[in-house]
């Protein structure tokens, strides 16, 4: 029984570690802050999840496992909120993104608009 749990943990933790290191490597390699955010989100989502799931398998059905679930929930609900705030602040501060294509002026007239949103020029 313990061997099965160990095997499952290994299968979760090793890929988790792979994604952690890859994401951190991406943090170094990417050219600007927006693309780096994509690399960081690999760490925050898949890397962290796999690692924590592996630890949960090791913890078994205990309160420790529940606390690990809370850690995961914290990362999943508020990682994106923080990334969003960061991207917004960077755009606001006029940090120019490296872009291959800018489709922000894309026409969104797939239906009558109830809001001013699509009529505006793209935000800076």
């Amino acid at each position, binding site marked *: 029984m313990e061997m099965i749990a*160990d095997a499952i*943990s*290994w299968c979760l*933790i*090793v890929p*988790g*570690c*792979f994604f*952690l*290191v890859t*994401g*951190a*490597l991406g*943090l*170094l390699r990417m050219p600007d*802050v927006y693309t*780096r*955010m994509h690399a*960081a989100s690999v*760490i*925050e989502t898949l*890397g*962290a999840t796999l*690692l*924590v799931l*592996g*630890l949960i398998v*090791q*913890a078994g059905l205990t309160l*420790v496992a529940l*606390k*690990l679930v*809370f*850690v995961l929930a*914290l*990362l999943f609900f*508020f*990682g994106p*909120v*923080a990334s969003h*705030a*960061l991207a*917004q*602040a*960077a755009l*606001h*501060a006029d*940090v120019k993104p490296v872009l291959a294509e800018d489709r922000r002026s894309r026409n969104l007239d797939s239906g009558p608009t109830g*809001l*001013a*949103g699509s009529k*505006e020029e793209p935000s800076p």
Partner: protein
Amino acid sequence: MFYVATGAVLAALMLAVIRAIRGPTVFDRVLASNTIGTLAILLLASYGFLTDRPEFLDIGLTYGLLNLIGTFAVLKFFRHGDLAHDIAEDQEKSRWK
């Protein structure tokens, strides 16, 4: 196995620290410090298992919460210049209500 996890987290942590030191803009540094926070939670979790003291998870949760609040505070400071800035008031004045 916990050694592997701890080692990988430490390696990732090191790379993130390099980004925090080099990061050309302040937002790169905030991003790096946010990532360091995430990795620190994972480090606390796996180190807690390594030493068989799961109370480390409480510290991890605390650290995660404070990391989140700190990130928001820093971002708001750099975006608006002061922390007292009232986003609600600002948006009522702006174009979309």
